[in-house]
């Protein structure tokens, strides 16, 4: 239908595009399988159609890119297949294997129309991503970090990452707040999205807030439930898993799903299948603290009363021993005393007997002795008496002598008297009073 203008064969734009369309549709009659990375899904909720951005990268550089269309009906069917197989909806940033036709539209140009996406391929891709995350964590030496923390003796203060309206949150609170032992927990909610692509950033944001005030908490619990098994691949996300690994206090998970364990759950300090199970675990930790205390209390009572009873028994036995020993000693001493006293009295009696005999003997001897002494003394005395009698002046006077006295004293020398002195002379039959007329000394010759 071309026309000739100025000797030139000229086509209209439509003719050209229709020609290209014809060529392409002849060349690409059948659909074929393509492998590519879906950078963006670009789902328009108003129309329900998607315009995915597909790329192929080599060393991070885009080497191919093409406009793609996924019509509403196809999207709904494929997405439902994905949910069944992957437990994940179609989403950005995954590798897909898709069946497509090449289309050329005169207005919209060249595009690929996706008619089918293989969920099994993407499942493998997700699994590969998960393995990559695990590999990276292990290589970085952080994989076991949170698990290596020590379990707090009482996980009492809980930083709870959850959604206030979720069933899991309600279940968790119900179990820990209404336990029949009266255990008290302190829960502080850090609300976050818990599934889908945005959950990674949302949970990371809250974890970083908790990290700043970690001294208020013993553990972190990520609790989810009632949300089905969809949209959990975010828990395989490297950054989220790494933050959990490196978190300074134990992170517990109770995400509540039936699919394979996610990386976040693998690296968490403790993973409980459901929020309820997590709550039970925490109560058990309280039991683990409480029961030994009860046991110690009982041990304390029995051991203490044992010690007291032992000491009492010792004291009693010591007292008995003391009593018996002192009794024996008393009896022994009493016996000894009695025997000493008996022997002493015997000895004394004998001693007195001996002394009595001795005294009697002395007395006899004394009597005998004194008798003879008396006789001899009497004889001596009579001899002396005779001598003395002989010497008596009376007897001298009787023999014819006299004694002349002056002033009562016998005159024995001329010196005793002077002429004129009065003297008295004693004779045998009376006295003569005289006066001295003269004195005459004897011749010395």
């Amino acid at each position, binding site marked *: 239908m071309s026309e000739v203008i100025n000797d030139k064969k000229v086509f209209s734009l439509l003719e050209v595009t229709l020609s290209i369309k014809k060529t392409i549709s002849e060349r690409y009659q059948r659909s074929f399988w393509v492998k590519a990375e879906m950078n963006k899904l670009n789902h328009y909720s108003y129309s329900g159609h998607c315009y995915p951005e597909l790329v192929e990268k080599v060393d991070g550089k885009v080497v191919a890119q093409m406009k793609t269309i996924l019509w509403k009906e196809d999207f709904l069917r494929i997405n439902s297949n994905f949910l069944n197989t992957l437990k994940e909806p179609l989403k950005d940033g995954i590798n897909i294997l898709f069946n497509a036709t090449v289309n050329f539209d005169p207005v919209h140009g060249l595009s690929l129309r996706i008619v089918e996406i293989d969920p099994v391929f993407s499942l493998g891709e997700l699994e590969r991503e998960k393995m990559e995350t695990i590999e990276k964590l292990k290589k970085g030496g952080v994989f076991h970090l949170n698990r290596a923390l020590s379990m707090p003796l009482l996980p009492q203060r809980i930083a709870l990452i959850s959604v206030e309206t979720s069933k899991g949150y309600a279940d968790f609170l119900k179990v820990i707040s209404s336990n029949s032992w009266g255990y*008290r927990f302190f829960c502080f909610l850090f609300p976050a999205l818990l599934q889908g692509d945005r959950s990674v950033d949302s949970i990371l944001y809250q974890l970083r807030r908790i990290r700043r005030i970690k001294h208020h908490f013993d553990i972190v619990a990520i609790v989810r439930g009632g949300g089905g098994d969809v949209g959990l691949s975010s828990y395989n996300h490297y950054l989220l898993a790494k933050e959990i690994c490196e978190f300074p206090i134990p992170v517990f998970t109770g995400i509540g799903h039936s699919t394979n364990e996610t990386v976040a759950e693998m690296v968490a300090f403790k993973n409980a299948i459901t929020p309820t199970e997590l709550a039970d675990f925490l109560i058990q930790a309280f039991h683990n603290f409480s029961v030994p205390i009860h046991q110690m209390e009982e*041990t*304390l009572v029995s051991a203490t009363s044992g010690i007291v009873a032992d000491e009492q028994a010792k004291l009693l036995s010591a007292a008995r021993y003391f009593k018996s020993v002192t009794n024996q000693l008393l009896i022994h001493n009493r016996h000894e005393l009695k025997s000493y006293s008996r022997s002493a009295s015997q000895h004394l009696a004998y001693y007195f007997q001996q002394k009595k005999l001795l005294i009697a003997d002395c007395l006899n001897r004394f009597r005998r002795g004194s008798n003879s002494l008396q006789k001899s003394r009497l004889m001596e005395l009579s001899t002396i008496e005779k001598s003395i009698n002989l010497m008596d002046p009376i007897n001298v006077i009787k023999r014819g002598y006299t004694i002349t006295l002056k002033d009562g004293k016998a005159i024995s020398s001329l010196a005793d008297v002077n002429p004129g002195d009065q003297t008295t002379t004693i004779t045998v039959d009376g006295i003569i009073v005289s006066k001295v007329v003269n004195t005459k000394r004897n011749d010395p010759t």
Partner: protein
Amino acid sequence: MNEKITYTQAFEELQSIVEEIESGQISVDELSEKVKRATFLIKLCKTKLTTTEEDVKQILKELEDGEE
């Protein structure tokens, strides 16, 4: 007794006292003091199980301070 003691410390101290008493390596003179201390620690631990002292206002304040 107003001393600040964590339940870990309380628990461990209690354990060592009970072991000491149980082993019989304790004199009657010390016994009374130790039993008194153990009783205090048991009471403390039991109280810890059934009460919390966290202050929500303080936590909120610290969170806000960090986010300014």
